[in-house]
């Protein structure tokens, strides 16, 4: 949520009649895509009023906490920031699709080559032989030369051999993909019961690419995290609360936890709040003064507004979820923030209503990284309560606190290690006289015309000193379910995950810290990482320097660790990329939005990419939607890897559209990302199933399917080519015309479709247990040009045997009853039958998962072949269409011959045996991981899953990392103290809080001022 406010001058125009008289003029910046910046000036009544991003509502925002507002449209249509950020929509194809197109073109070229060879053969034959044979077979009318005959024969052969170009391939591929999409839609394990949304494959064309993903670009809020802050742990007076008894800590599933703490004693408790450590409540109830003071601070030092619709039903309107979580925690532990006025705060402390006088709010900002309140208790004591970043606050404590500080610091380390967002709490008693003096100075400073900020900062600084440490809080930025596990597994599957967090964090938040925190909590960053580089440079030179330093460090590290090995490699391969890929040690890169803008410039993008790709984890924060798309585009452009973008909000749309595969999280954030996505589901954790199970299978099936498909078409068609050399290149087909028609449609299509839809090499659980099984897809091992040529070679080999074995047998052979055996029709039936049997046996070998459907299709295809064969060769059909069914009686006469069956058997054996031997040798000598897994499955040797258990036991020494993160924003304190909002609305904040990109719906209301506004843009 973000705070947006009208400029003071226009906020007065609350009714329509005054609004109608508004005749201001806005001059502003030209349309751009920067979501966090706006510069403009309002000219009204001969006055200039500055307009900033604070006064803007962007297209796609949804108003929260505000019933209505009037606005002036500054940009419309394609000029809006949202539209400026939307990338081009491109038609997505999979790499296999592209490869397939290339291959089909090659095959087409091959077809033309064959046509040319046979046409030349025909010309020569007609010239040498056909010319003499004219007494029995005169040339067709109009054919006067052998060359022309060759030309005609070329086209005849193009027609006959066109089956080598797999036209039905495209249809079959689509059918298979459709099947896979349905499996995704049907998957119960990707169904979120809570939101009642099943996974949805919104496109059916990208499935197999899910098995090849190398880079995942993930949004953070809403995707990795739930955008819910939960008060998870705290440290009070050197005692840490919040640990759950029976477990190591963080990744305990909800079900395994003991009962949460019972807050029923407190009528004002928020029922949604859960805490697992009863000792903290005991401490409150025992009256531990430290704990009381701790929660008192939490209930006083904040900028939350409360709303009490009916007695006891409190609603907090927090500007940041962090604050909401803290105040709610205090509320449940008996320190209920009840209401506030500009000058007072009413708190129910363990049932007693106490009203504190609010003397000052020392507001939060990014530099101070802390906020304080100064209150006067009913007893008259003046106290300063302060909460803030540990790095800042620990330096401002009174030296006497040293012991406690050390203990608390340990706790903070622990919390930070778990990825919790920490705040340190401290307080200080103020002397009445000192306060009076200070307040007087403050009054003067705030009235000062210039350098007001500086003077205020100095005053704040002065009072926030020598404080007493109360403790620390740890807030959990609630991850979506199963996020760390998913990321761990995906990382093991060699998928690189880049987190691109958008602008959704409140603009004041120190984004790098939040992102780093999330990185730790979802196991992207670990303490055993050699180094985490943070790039925050504001200029090109700074960024370049930082990137260069990072690279140098990585290089040094690898050199010292690899004993110069990689150095040698550098000499040999001179390519920087390869050096960086050979880096030893784990690094991570965190880069800020403004630095990223420089890093993405044309001359630096390669440098940036190399650095980033050498790191195990990359986190980009505060990036604009367009930058997200640019990062994806960059990786796509240079890495030739399959990218997947996952996000939930409107700001992820361009990234989702740009990546090879876009995944939308369907959930609270609206449907915009889902609409742009190719796949959608409601939990990030389903991604592992989508990729490792569905994607892997899809890729595997598609590859097996393609290999077989090309094989069977070549085996089928090339026979004509060989026959051409024996029939005067006359374009005579080997098979009956009906066989040619039905071969691809009836005899061989269904078994391979069944394999393409149902095949499984290893059970789904195994692909989760062995994420390495995913690698063949990334390396594109199962179907590439090499595999294609192997398939083609196998097809040609089969066709050679398919032709020459029957040829050898039939030449000069006779039937057992003395009649001629080698008639054309018998030959055709023999070759066709052996072909159908060979390709059926081959599909049987290829099918690794024989479901009933596979059985039905494979046996059914064979049965259908023989049934159709006998039907086609039956008397009845011949009587009806004698010129069409000329093979009458052939099946029964030919297939009654033992020689024919022996020929078929021999053909099958010599076509299949080498394949079996080759597969077995490969399995034996160079087994793939999937083979091994399959084998162990067979032997029932239960292996321990390779799961990496949580690696971090404790803090791995090294320098202390601050877990501080606080998505808070400056300016609220002032607002509260001024009491302005309370005058306007006792319930809600006057500035409308807005969330960008929640829905596509035009939520902006165009009122009177709206119509004239697009013109004003032109003036800017």
């Amino acid at each position: 949520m973000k705070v947006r406010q009208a400029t003071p001058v226009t906020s007065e125009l609350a009714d329509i009649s005054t609004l109608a008289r508004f005749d201001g003029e806005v001059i502003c910046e030209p349309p751009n895509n920067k979501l966090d910046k706006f510069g403009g000036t309002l000219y009204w009544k001969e006055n200039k009023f500055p307009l900033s991003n604070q006064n803007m509502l962007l297209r796609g925002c949804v108003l929260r906490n505000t019933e209505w507002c009037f606005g002036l449209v500054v940009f419309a249509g394609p000029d809006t920031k949202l539209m400026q950020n939307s990338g081009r929509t491109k038609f997505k194809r999979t790499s296999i699709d592209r490869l397939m197109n290339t291959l089909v073109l090659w095959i087409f070229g091959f077809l033309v080559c064959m046509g040319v060879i046979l046409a030349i053969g025909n010309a020569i034959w007609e010239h040498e032989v056909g010319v003499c044979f004219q007494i029995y077979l005169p040339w067709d009318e109009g054919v006067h030369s052998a060359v022309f005959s060759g030309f005609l024969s070329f086209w005849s052969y193009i027609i006959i051999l066109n089956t080598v170009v797999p036209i039905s391939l495209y249809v079959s591929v689509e059918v298979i993909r459709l099947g896979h999409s349905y499996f995704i839609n049907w998957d119960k394990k990707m169904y979120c019961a809570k939101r009642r949304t099943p996974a949805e494959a919104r496109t059916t064309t990208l499935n197999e690419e899910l098995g090849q993903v190398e880079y995942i670009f993930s949004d953070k809020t809403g995707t990795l995290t739930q955008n819910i802050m939960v008060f998870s742990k705290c440290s009070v007076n050197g005692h840490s609360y919040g640990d759950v008894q029976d477990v190591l800590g963080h990744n305990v599933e909800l079900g395994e936890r003991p009962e949460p703490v019972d807050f029923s004693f407190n009528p004002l408790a928020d029922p949604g709040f859960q805490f697992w450590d009863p000792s903290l409540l005991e401490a409150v109830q025992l009256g531990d003064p430290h704990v009381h003071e701790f929660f008192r601070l939490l209930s006083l030092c904040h900028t939350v507004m409360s709303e009490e619709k009916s007695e006891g039903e409190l609603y907090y309107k927090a500007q940041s979820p962090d604050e909401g979580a803290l105040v709610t925690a205090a509320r449940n532990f008996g320190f209920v923030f009840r209401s506030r006025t500009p000058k007072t705060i009413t708190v129910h402390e363990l049932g007693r209503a106490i009203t504190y006088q609010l003397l000052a709010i020392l507001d939060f900002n990014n530099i101070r990284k802390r906020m304080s309140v100064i209150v006067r208790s009913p007893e008259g004591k003046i106290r300063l309560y302060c909460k803030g970043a540990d790095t800042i606050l620990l330096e401002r404590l009174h030296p006497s606190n040293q012991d406690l500080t050390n203990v608390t610091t340990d706790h903070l380390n622990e919390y930070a290690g778990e990825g919790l967002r920490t705040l340190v709490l401290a307080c200080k008693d103020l002397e009445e006289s000192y306060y009076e003096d200070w307040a007087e100075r403050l009054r003067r400073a705030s009235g000062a015309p210039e350098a007001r900020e500086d003077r205020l900062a100095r005053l704040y600084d002065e009072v926030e000193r020598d404080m007493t440490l109360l403790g620390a809080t740890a807030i959990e930025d609630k991850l979506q379910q199963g996020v760390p596990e998913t990321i761990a597994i995906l990382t093991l599957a060699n998928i690189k995950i880049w987190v691109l967090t958008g602008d959704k964090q409140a603009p004041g938040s120190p984004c790098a810290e939040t992102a780093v925190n999330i990185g730790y909590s979802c196991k992207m960053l670990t303490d055993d990482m050699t180094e985490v580089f943070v790039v925050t440079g504001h200029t090109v030179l700074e960024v370049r320097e930082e990137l260069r330093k990072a690279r140098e460090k990585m290089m040094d590290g690898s050199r010292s660790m690899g004993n110069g090995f990689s150095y040698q490699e550098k000499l040999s391969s001179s390519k920087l990329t390869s050096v960086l890929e050979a880096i030893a040690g784990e690094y991570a890169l965190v880069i800020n939005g403004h630095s990223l803008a420089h890093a993405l410039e044309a001359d630096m993008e390669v440098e940036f990419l190399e650095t980033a790709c050498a790191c195990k984890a990359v986190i980009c924060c505060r990036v604009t939607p367009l930058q997200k798309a640019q990062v994806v585009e960059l990786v796509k452009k240079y890495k030739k890897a399959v990218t997947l973008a996952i996000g939930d909000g409107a700001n992820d749309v361009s990234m989702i559209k740009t990546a090879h595969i876009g995944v939308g999280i369907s959930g609270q954030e609206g449907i915009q990302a889902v609409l742009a996505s190719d796949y959608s589901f409601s939990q990030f954790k389903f991604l592992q199933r989508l990729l490792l199970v569905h994607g892997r299978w899809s890729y595997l099936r598609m590859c097996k399917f393609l290999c077989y498909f090309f094989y069977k078409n070549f085996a089928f068609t090339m026979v004509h080519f060989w026959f051409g050399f024996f029939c005067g290149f006359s374009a005579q087909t080997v098979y009956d015309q009906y066989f040619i028609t039905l071969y691809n449609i009836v005899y061989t299509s269904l078994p391979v479709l069944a394999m393409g839809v149902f095949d499984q090499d290893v059970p789904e659980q195994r692909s989760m247990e062995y994420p390495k099984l995913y690698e063949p897809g990334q390396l594109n091992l199962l179907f590439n040009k090499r595999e294609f040529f192997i398939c083609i070679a196998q097809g040609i080999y089969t066709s050679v045997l398919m032709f020459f074995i029957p040829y050898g047998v039939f030449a000069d052979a006779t039937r057992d009853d003395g009649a001629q055996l080698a008639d054309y029709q018998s030959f055709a039936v023999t070759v066709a039958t052996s072909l159908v049997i060979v390709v059926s046996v081959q599909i049987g070998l290829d099918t690794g998962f024989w479901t009933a459907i596979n059985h039905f299709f494979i046996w059914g295809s064979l049965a259908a072949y023989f049934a159709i064969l006998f039907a086609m060769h039956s008397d009845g059909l011949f009587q009806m269409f004698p010129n069409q069914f000329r093979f009458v009686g052939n099946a029964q006469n030919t297939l009654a011959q033992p020689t024919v069956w022996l020929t078929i058997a021999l053909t099958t054996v010599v076509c299949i045996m080498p394949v079996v031997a080759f597969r077995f040798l490969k399995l034996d000598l160079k087994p793939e991981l999937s083979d091994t897994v399959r084998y162990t499955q067979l032997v029932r040797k239960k292996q321990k899953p390779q799961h990496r258990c949580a690696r971090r036991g404790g803090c791995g020494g090294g320098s202390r990392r601050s877990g501080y993160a606080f998505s808070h924003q400056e300016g609220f304190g002032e607002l509260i103290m001024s009491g302005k909002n309370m005058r306007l609305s006792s319930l809600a904040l006057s500035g409308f809080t807005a969330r960008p990109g929640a829905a596509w719906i035009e939520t902006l209301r165009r009122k009177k001022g709206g119509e004239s506004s697009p013109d004003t843009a032109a003036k800017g």
Partner: protein
Amino acid sequence: MKNKKSSAPQEAETRPSRCPDNSAFKQQKLPAWKPQLTAASVLSTFFLTGAFCLSVGVSLIVAAKSVREIQVDYSDKCSHCSKLRENSSNWNSECLCSINITLAEDMLGDVFMYYGLQNFYQNHRRYALSRSDEQLLGRNVDVQNSYCAPFATYQNGTPMAPCGAIANSMFNDTIDLFYNFNSSVIQVPLLKTGNSWWTDKNVKFRNPESHNLSAAFAGTARPPYWHKAVYLLDEEDEKNNGYINDDFIIWMRVSAFATFRNLYRRISRKGQFTDGLPAGNYTFHISYNFPVSKFKGKKYVILSTMVWSGGSNPFLGIAYLGASQWIVQLVFILRSQW
């Protein structure tokens, strides 16, 4: 309260529609057989296949070896006739040719006489297409619309019966076999029927219906290369005349390759030839009508006995032996790797 009650079942109704069914099919959990190439199964398969190939190969070779076959190239031996036929203006002049052969051994069992043609492209697409099966079925068809051209009709419009290049080029030599026994010459009795497939003779080829055959073919003319009309192919045997003449049927079953042999006659096993052809001297008397030298072809006459696997072609047996050899090698390779 009422409202709540009514909304609850509605919710229950909508819930299953969103949640995927838990069926084995949809969850991809169908029971399945997962075959695996294991050493035991692969090696035993190879072993069994090898054994099968070996035994089949041996028995095929033994069988092929027992076949007695004699083949005579009579286009070469009767070169005077070949020369004569080269000039098509001599088509009407008869040319007779005798060829002596000697059987060193008896040819026991059924003996078959074939004519063989070399370099005759019966499998040429245009040739193989040039026929009208409907006409051969005795139906009244307009051959002009068939693939028979240019052997469909004469210039005056008379259709050819049978039409097409295949029929026109029908083999029309007559071959008689004489046994020179103790200076007497005995004609070997030959069977000219029963040589074709039953389906061809009874289904695929039918004469047109009429009270007699010549009337049935009235209004048609013989193909240009024929010496006599189709209803005169066998004047002695009504059931072997017209389209259902065995020689014609066999010719019409076109060969798959340019070199082929067609069954011409069977030796009738009676008299001296009850057991087959005894060893001795024989003479073929050939009426040489079919020109082959024009297209550099050759003609053969072949005598052969028959076994279960057909004639003397040893290819299949050798191929099986080769395959078994190869499989044994593969097994050794696999064993050495294993």
